[in-house]
């Protein structure tokens, strides 16, 4: 009989996998690892935010990504399903850490336990923020699911208000538990969630929620800006992306890569042949609209840090319908690293939060203060202060902030959410004038109300009959 009681040799079993401090640390590391293993954080966030918007074309050869570019997502698009599934997988791991940490007694201090809980709360909030922005109402799994009982597994969608309430609650829980820093090592402080990260995310969350609370946005943005962690804008914008200055003072939290088996495959997907070493048509092609936006501001520093032009052997239906045309490339990751790049990805950085502060100031009627705040970011990029047209009114200031965010944060996964938050998605997308050179036709994005949310993946509806599809799909 005993011969049949076999336990895994190369795996742990849940009953004994979370008893010591090092084990719960490993479980927490596993939550962070989702930033690497989830296709969404590796690359698809660029599709969801930048390709879906007016910033980039799809490039490449994948019809499912073309659908993002056309803002024509179908419930059966496997990338939408991968986004849903991989982000919820990360949430499940965070739920597990939240559930198991209080029971750990061996080899751990109470202080560290508190921090671990804080980190897990932050991570769960970050992931739910991604879901609620993309799908609206989503089911709230806040307990680790350990049975296949449909009562536990088939949750209906919670309203986005409830989801935001959960996010805010998690972030407040994180705020009380997280330290400003874990010591002096930046490669720890920028890897782990900190008080600064929780404040930064709260600032963004309060602005994005259905009924924004700009006072809270302002307060949390200021908490970041004035943090004892000492966040500051890098003087040289290009250093953010040159690959030699990760975990810098401007970074609040970023996805860590080392290359090799801790490598990032994303950069190879869009770097030009001269950098990537291969000659196939790349994904994520900067749009005319984006290039024009940089040019209209005379913003060369950020343009050159964001986009690289190169003559290529393939044809591009937007940039050159002949071989050897000059085609722009997404350039905010610089090292292809043979599909295993050591380039990090910023989850939150100070310039974003400074602009969130400006947004709050403007919405609270402090338009002049907002201009001062925006100018911090502009001046760093070598641009003059906002002109008087931009500062003339609250609404003009709003547009100036939206544009500033675009130029500052292109390719970093913000644009679509910004357009939606500013209520500009339909207007902006439907006025884009892109000509498809292969047909000579103007591209009509035809974005309507339903396009503002992604469809709930059909595969998930098949598994969970309690889910209702978003309208219009």
């Amino acid at each position, binding site marked *: 009989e005993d*011969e*049949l009681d*076999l*336990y*895994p*040799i*190369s*795996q*742990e*079993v*849940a*009953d004994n*996998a979370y008893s010591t401090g090092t084990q719960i*640390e*490993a479980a927490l*590391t596993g939550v962070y*690892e989702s930033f*690497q293993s989830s296709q969404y954080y590796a690359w698809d966030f660029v599709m969801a935010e930048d390709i879906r918007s007016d910033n980039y074309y*799809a490039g490449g*050869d994948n*019809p499912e990504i073309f659908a993002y570019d056309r803002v024509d997502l179908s*419930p*059966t698009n496997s990338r939408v399903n991968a986004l*849903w*599934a991989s982000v*919820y*997988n990360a949430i*499940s*791991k965070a739920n597990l850490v939240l559930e198991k940490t209080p029971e750990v007694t061996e080899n751990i201090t109470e202080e560290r336990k508190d921090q671990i809980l804080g980190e897990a709360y932050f991570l769960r909030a970050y992931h739910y923020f991604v879901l609620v922005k993309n799908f609206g109402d989503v089911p709230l*799994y806040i307990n*680790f*699911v*350990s049975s*296949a009982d449909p009562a536990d597994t*088939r949750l209906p969608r919670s309203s986005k208000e409830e989801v935001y309430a959960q996010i805010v609650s998690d972030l407040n829980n994180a705020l009380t538990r997280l330290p400003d820093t874990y010591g002096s*090592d930046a490669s*720890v402080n920028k*890897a782990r969630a900190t008080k600064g990260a929780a404040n930064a995310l709260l600032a963004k969350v309060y602005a994005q929620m259905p009924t924004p609370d700009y006072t809270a946005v302002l307060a949390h943005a200021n908490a970041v800006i004035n943090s004892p962690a000492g966040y500051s804008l890098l003087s040289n914008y290009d250093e953010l992306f040159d690959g030699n200055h990760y975990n810098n003072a401007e970074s609040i939290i970023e996805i*860590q*890569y*080392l290359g090799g*088996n*801790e490598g990032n495959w994303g950069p190879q997907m869009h770097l030009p042949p001269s950098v990537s070493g*291969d*000659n*196939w*048509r790349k994904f994520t092609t900067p749009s005319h609209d984006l290039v024009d936006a940089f040019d209209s501001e005379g913003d060369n520093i950020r343009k050159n840090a964001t986009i690289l032009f190169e003559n290529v052997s*393939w044809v591009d*239906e937007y940039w050159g319908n002949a*071989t050897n045309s000059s085609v722009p490339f997404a350039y905010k990751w610089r090292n*292809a690293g*043979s*599909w*295993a790049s050591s380039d990090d990805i910023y989850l939150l950085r100070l310039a974003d939060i400074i602009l969130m502060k400006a947004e709050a100031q403007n919405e609270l009627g402090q338009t002049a203060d907002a201009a001062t705040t925006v100018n911090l970011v502009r001046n760093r990029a070598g641009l003059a202060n906002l002109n008087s047209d931009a500062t003339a009114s609250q609404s003009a200031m709003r547009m100036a902030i939206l544009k500033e965010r675009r130029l500052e944060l292109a390719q970093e996964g913000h644009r679509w959410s910004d357009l939606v938050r500013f209520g500009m998605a339909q207007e902006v997308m439907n006025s884009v004038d892109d000509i498809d050179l*292969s047909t000579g036709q103007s591209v009509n994005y035809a974005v309507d109300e339903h396009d503002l949310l992604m469809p709930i993946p059909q*595969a*998930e509806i*098949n*598994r*969970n009959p309690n889910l209702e599809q978003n309208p219009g799909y």
Partner: protein
Amino acid sequence: QEKEITGTVTESASGMPIPGANVTVKYTANGVATDFDGKYSITASPTDTLVISYIGFTTQEFLVGNKTTFNVALAENAQALSEVIVVGYGTQKREDITGAVGLVKSEAFDERPNTDLGSLVQGQAAGVKVIKSSGKPSAGFNIRVRGTSSITGSSDPLYVIDGVPTTDTRSLNPSDIESISILKDASSAAIYGAGGANGVVLITTKKGSSEKPVFQFSSYVGVSSVWKTLDVLNAEQYRDLMTEMGKTTDWSQYTNNTDWQNEIFQDAISQNYQLSVSGKQNGTQYYISGGYVNQEGAVRSAEMEKYNFKTNLSKEVTDWLKIGTNINYTVYGDVDVTDNAAVNQGGVLLGVLATPPNIGIYNENGTFTSNPFQDWENPYSSTDGSDRGYKNQRLLGNVYTEFRFVKDLKFKSNFGIDYNADRYDYFLDPFRTSYGRATNGIGRYNTNINNYFIWDNTLSYKKQFGDHKIEALAGTVYQKYRWEYSSIERRNFASAEITTPGAGSEIITANAGKSEAANASILARLVYDYKNKYLLTANFRRDGSSKFGPNKKWGNFPSVSVGWRISNESFLENVEELTELKLRAGYGAVGNDNIATYAYLARVGSGGNYPIGGTAQPGTYPATIANYDLQWESSNQLNVGLDLRLFDSKISFSVDGYVKTNDNLLLDAPLPTGTGFSSAIQNVGRVQNKGLEFQLNTTTLQKGDFTWETSANISFNRNEVQDLVGQELYDGNVAGRGEVSLIREGEALGTFYGYVWGGVDPQTGDVYYIDQNGESTFNPTADDRTIIGNANPDFTYSLGNTLSYKNFGLNIFLQGSQGNDIFNATRVNMEGMIDSKNQFTSVLDRWQNPGDVTDIPRVLEGDIRNSLASDRYVEDGSYLRFKAVTLSYNLPKTFLEKVKLTTFKLYVTGENLITITDYSGFDPEVNAFGGSNTVQGVDFGTYPQTRNIIFGMNLTF
């Protein structure tokens, strides 16, 4: 005057005594049985006739006269009726079998390519479907006995080689096989309990049988080729298509007109050499063989190679002790090619079709050329751009010993092992291929070591009391599995000189792990025979598996079957034409535990590492959900059959009907991914297979030197998912168009699912579909998908004719499948016109101008809406195939005597010479999803079955 008569009854072949033989005085009730030494003593008068009989031997009669001693040597009854068939843990005479057992003898495949067992068994037994999902030399096969019965568990049968169970059949050497018994119903498979739910394939290898040593040498050489090519656009037509798509390039760079099918498909050579010696002397039986097979693929670079060595030995040490061993050592190697993948994923077959003819093979600098518009390299980069080699060394065998404690009671102990070490080497050229240049070369080295042992002990008892004959068996079995693996990958090589990973500078993967599983069982069987008319077999097995939860570790598997040999009833005794008429019926339960080890536990995976502080920290993740109630998938089967033999077995006919219901399916049921898990293994659902099988063998004509024998079978199986706890499952994501297979209550596994194609709008050239309300729409939603086909055939059949005249023989073996659908996803790729892939010539009829009436839509770059997975791609996959045609010639005896040979046969065999089918693809016998339970009959650039011709010889001396 009565006197005492004594004597010994022996087996004529071996001279061994026969205990338990019947010695009776004819027309009286006077009878005795021989003792342990075959001796008997009986009283009779000189005018009496003695009848000496023993089951399976020809009965002899003697007039007593004035003799007092009769030593009798009984000869084994040569008639097919008494054929001994290997069944679980023993043998049974064919006439005594009450279950459903299919039998394939080595003669059926002596003259066939010796590459794998699957194609040899195909069509040979009713109700046994062999799935050859790919024609690759490295492809294995799957057998489905009476349909697909599981959903996420395995539906493959258990293979048992000389008493050692196994799942890997690739390295088996067909020429060592004596016979294959396929236990189809629950009553015959129940003795294998938990392993028996999908049927059991018992493989018995050859043993020595004649006093004189027999040397056998056989060899063939052959050629195989793809039997059909498909029409794709030529260079000019491709250029027109691209231009229409709005794509321009410098066409002066692309002036070739390469026929990629001609470049990649080849006439592949195969060769085979087998040598064996066997014999039986002084109680020692031996069979020793060695062989070599090499098979090139009809697709460039594919290859398979096998060396095998086998020894079967047994020795009667004393009259109460027998020992023996069977040892099989194989070195198997293959080179795989990627199929079932699009050109941009390195799929060779779709690369062959989708690569435009306009480019050549190599660029000037020696690198592989690419599609003019995207860096999809030509198929040579897949076949020649990397070194790929799989090699498996395997030791499979057993030692056993048999004690005869007392007369009638035998104890057998058997210890078997299956030790398997394989490795996979891979090296991607750092210069010639695009991916290789990006990574500076990739070197991989993966190893697996699989260790298995089985120890079974059985006690068997055999006794005849007058009209009652009893055989009983009881035993225990313990089995243990251990798997170990490691994998290494490095990149960044300085050159292509060293191809092992050590030469690369960057470690991508360095992994190793181990796992185990164990089973313990007790088993029992009772066979009872009354007057050779009424037969009963009862089995019981109790199985415990480490894979199941503490609450449900053990399962019980009983079965019972009965037979009535009607032809032995007095009212039929005088019907001369009737050789045998037997009615059989059985019912039983068997189990399936074919799931991942540790399945019931909540496992926590490691390797979820993440850099914190500049170095990777160890990370874990929850991998599975616990299920302490996880238990056996159970299969209950009712079988009713009839065997009829007429005219001295010149005609034999069997029919079997069955209902097989699998309950508590081991279903890896999808979970909402919101839970963090994509599935959890549960016992839910029910699948039923029911069917009818007919088998007919006749000696159609026998006249002088001419013989014509025919065998035919036809099988009908209906599969139905009866319960899926209200869920629907989808599977078979193909060609970037989502899932095409549906699993739904009331439907069969292998049901196709998709949109309903309406037609091409003459105004816009766009495809309209029919929605769920029967209305046409250009933008169907996911809910408009419906059932569009079924991969299950209405029936499968085969027909074999063997003609021989003097020294010539002709064997024609036909095999077919009727009424099955194929989802031709190759056409989705090759008629979609969404990107710069070359297309089938059918797109020449594409819509180009308003008013064009056609069924091929317009070009539409980057958009799949005109090529959604729809019934347009569902084709009739029925086929009838000349599976094997063999012409053979035995050299005349007079000549053989001069050169001291016993037999010398020359033959030529053609496989798949003619295939009659309406299917438009390369071959109807494919599945991109291999032996999947749920996704069947999908063709997506799948390596086709090939046409093979071999020239061979068999000689013995």
